[in-house]
């Protein structure tokens, strides 16, 4: 009797686990099917064309791709040094009394729903950017800043965890040779935790590039490639969030699907790279 129960249990968990694989394949298939029309009609032009004018049946995804890349890049430039600083402080420098309250509040920040970052950005950052840098305030720059604030806590927390894996005995060995705190951080802790740190950056990059709610409020959904960072812009998820309800023609609808397929592929690639780094780390350790 108990053998049968074991078997049923094993098979049912197997079923659930395999269904996850199906889910991924299913999502891919649906996106692919719906993108077919746009792929056939537009071909490779879809990713090189800069004009997005649904009323003229022109669908160029380049401005959205450009916006996704630039806003994410801005966010990374701003967030990486801050995240490393916070992580170094928390793992190596902070007195025990500060470690846990600061650590916990960083984890709380990471749990804030992104729509709240978006609203906060719209009401707080947009006026600041407008007054400081000119323009209307809704812009690529604002999106980059809001994104950086959103990914900072996650990056800092994972980087800190990676740094905490450095064995005490390794750090002590460097101190025993006459190293200062700074020497030990720079030569031992950071190189030791490198894989984990890079992994956290790539995961954060993946989050930033697919982020929708935090940037939809502040980016502007303007399909135009502009080198001026204070000009409004768009990104793939921003376009999707803004335009699905307006898609009145089949080709419009299909090109939005192709855009989402593109985003899925980009995110997938990024996460795979990050996983590769993390896995390599755990195998060594």
């Amino acid at each position, binding site marked *: 009797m108990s053998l049968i129960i074991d078997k049923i249990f094993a098979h049912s968990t197997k079923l659930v686990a395999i269904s996850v694989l199906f889910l991924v394949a299913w999502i891919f298939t649906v996106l692919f099917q719906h993108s077919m029309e746009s792929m056939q009609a537009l071909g490779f032009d879809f990713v090189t064309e800069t004009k997005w004018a649904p009323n003229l049946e022109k669908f160029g995804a380049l401005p959205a791709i450009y916006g996704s890349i630039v806003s994410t890049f801005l966010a990374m430039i701003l967030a990486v040094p801050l995240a490393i600083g916070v992580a170094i402080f928390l793992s190596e420098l902070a*007195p025990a009394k500060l470690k846990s309250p600061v650590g916990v509040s960083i984890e709380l920040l990471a749990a804030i729903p992104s729509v709240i970052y978006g609203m906060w950005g719209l009401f707080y950052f947009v006026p600041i950017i407008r007054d400081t840098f000119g323009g209307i305030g809704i812009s690529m720059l604002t999106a980059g800043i809001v994104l950086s604030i959103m990914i900072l806590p996650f990056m800092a927390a994972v980087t800190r965890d990676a740094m905490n894996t450095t064995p005490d*005995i390794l750090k*002590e060995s460097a101190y*025993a*040779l*006459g190293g200062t705190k700074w020497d030990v951080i720079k030569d031992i802790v950071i190189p030791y935790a490198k894989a984990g740190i890079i992994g956290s950056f790539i995961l954060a990059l993946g989050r930033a590039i697919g982020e929708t709610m935090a940037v939809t409020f502040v980016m502007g959904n303007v399909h135009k490639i502009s080198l001026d960072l204070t000009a409004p812009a768009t990104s793939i998820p921003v376009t999707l969030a803004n335009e699905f309800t307006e898609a009145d023609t089949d080709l419009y609808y299909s090109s939005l699907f192709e855009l989402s397929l593109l985003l899925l592929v980009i995110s997938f690639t990024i996460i795979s790279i990050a996983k590769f780094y993390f896995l390599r780390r755990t195998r060594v350790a």
Partner: protein
Amino acid sequence: MATIVDITEEKALEVKNFEFTYASADEPSIKKLNMPIAKNSITALIGPSGCGKTTLLRAFNRMHDLYPGNEYAGEILFKNRNILTSKEDLINLRIQIGMIFQKPTAFPMSIFDNVAYGMKLQGIKNKTELNDRVEKALCDAAIWKEVKDRLKHDANGLSGGQQQRLCIARAIAVEPEVLLFDEPTSALDPISTSGIEELVIELKKKVSIIIVTHNMQQAARVSDYTGFMYLGELIELGYTEEMFVTPKEKLTEEYITGKFG
């Protein structure tokens, strides 16, 4: 009171009325300890787990200062000064008193960079000097032949015994006067262990050595002096040859004959 043999040689270190209390502990882990350490010889510290031998060892290079709240009392004299004062320059002290740990601790860098690390910390940048001193340290640590063709390789690719000899090379490259060994062979196989032991004996020509060990045979094989510690006190310090044959204290005898420990 402890039985302490008269040391006729010059002393490398002298512990006087030393007490040590860990942060958040009510009682000191080491109580009123007096102990001379002879120069250019090997002093082994033995005793059951928790007797304070590693705690004492880590006081010699002020390793305890890395963690807040630990307290020292009494004196440890090194070159006629008390190294337990707050004025002591810890960076400089740790250059002169090196340490080898229970497990090999190769840094995440190349073999060459591992050995050069201590010198680089001191600001030595001259390539020829670095090359010469790295080679000399690796030779002195009896590992030069094995690694000379792969100095640029990652040090973590070496075996455990090789890594431990690399750590010794790294420690002697900065030319310390005292070397502290904290159970240096506890993670190694018997062959690597005897390699390290031979090396330790060879090293005493240049440095004074204190070695903490759980292995009484090891203490008997390598050391000139042996100190037996129990419950935070030094029970007996004597010539190794004499102590393992005719211990003066009853506790020492019981410990080395395996009655407790």
